[in-house]
């Protein structure tokens, strides 16, 4: 019995020791570095495309497509997962994280088939983002029509 009482007293301490430390500062610094780096790579592509004669808007669009392509490839080779483990939101918030979420959930449900597995699960994360995005754009458009 004494043992149990002792354990009860020590338990909160044990929980504290084994629960993950609150590393908000370090995590945000990592997110800052990774997120900043991804955006800078995107800007780099834009500059390169502009250098080769593309208009600014086109260059930005092609740069976004390039980032999405790279993210899909890196996810396929299981590399983006590791970037995500280090960078957290820094890897998730950029458009590359959006593409990564699509590919990784599609990969995970590959066994359920090409239509209901991959075809449907591609949109586990992307679906909500596109749904709310479409709604927001229509609402904004209507407001600006009347204002």
């Amino acid at each position, binding site marked *: 019995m004494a043992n149990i009482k002792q354990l009860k007293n020590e338990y909160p301490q044990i929980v504290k020791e084994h629960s993950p430390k609150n590393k908000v500062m370090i995590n945000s610094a990592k997110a800052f570095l990774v997120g900043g780096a991804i955006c800078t790579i995107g800007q780099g592509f834009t500059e390169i495309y502009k250098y080769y004669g593309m208009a600014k808007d086109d260059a930005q669009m092609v740069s976004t497509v390039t980032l999405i392509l790279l993210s899909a490839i890196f996810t396929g080779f299981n590399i983006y997962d590791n970037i995500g483990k280090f960078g957290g*939101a820094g890897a998730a*918030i950029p458009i590359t994280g959006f593409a990564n979420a699509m590919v990784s959930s599609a990969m995970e449900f590959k066994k359920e088939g090409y239509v209901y597995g991959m075809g449907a699960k591609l949109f586990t994360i992307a679906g909500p983002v596109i749904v709310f995005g479409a709604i927001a754009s229509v609402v904004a458009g209507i407001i600006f029509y009347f204002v």
Partner: protein
Amino acid sequence: MDLFMELLKTFVVGGIICSIGQILLDRTKLTGGRIMVLFLLAGAVLTALGLYEPLVNFAGAGATVPISGFGYALVKGAIEEVGKEGFMGAFSGGIKATSAGITAAIVFGYMAALLSNPKSKS
């Protein structure tokens, strides 16, 4: 030097946006998908209020690459299309402006998933 300054601005602004996401992830119970939707909507609302465009002009990809930039592109597209096409522009403009990105994500995403297998969880 100019290019270096441009890239530095991109890095700092993109980094700040992502670290806000990380703080939300660590300090609240919001999951990754919800934070993405939240950032998208934040980008959309700030764009409608005319506050996101200056950030894009300042930081370029630092503001357009984060998912809030997707919200920016959607709303900007819808507003511009309303100016050109009238009421129906509200329905066509957003997706039209972002169609290349969405289609790229679907096509490349499906192909990448088709050609690769998840790492075994051992």
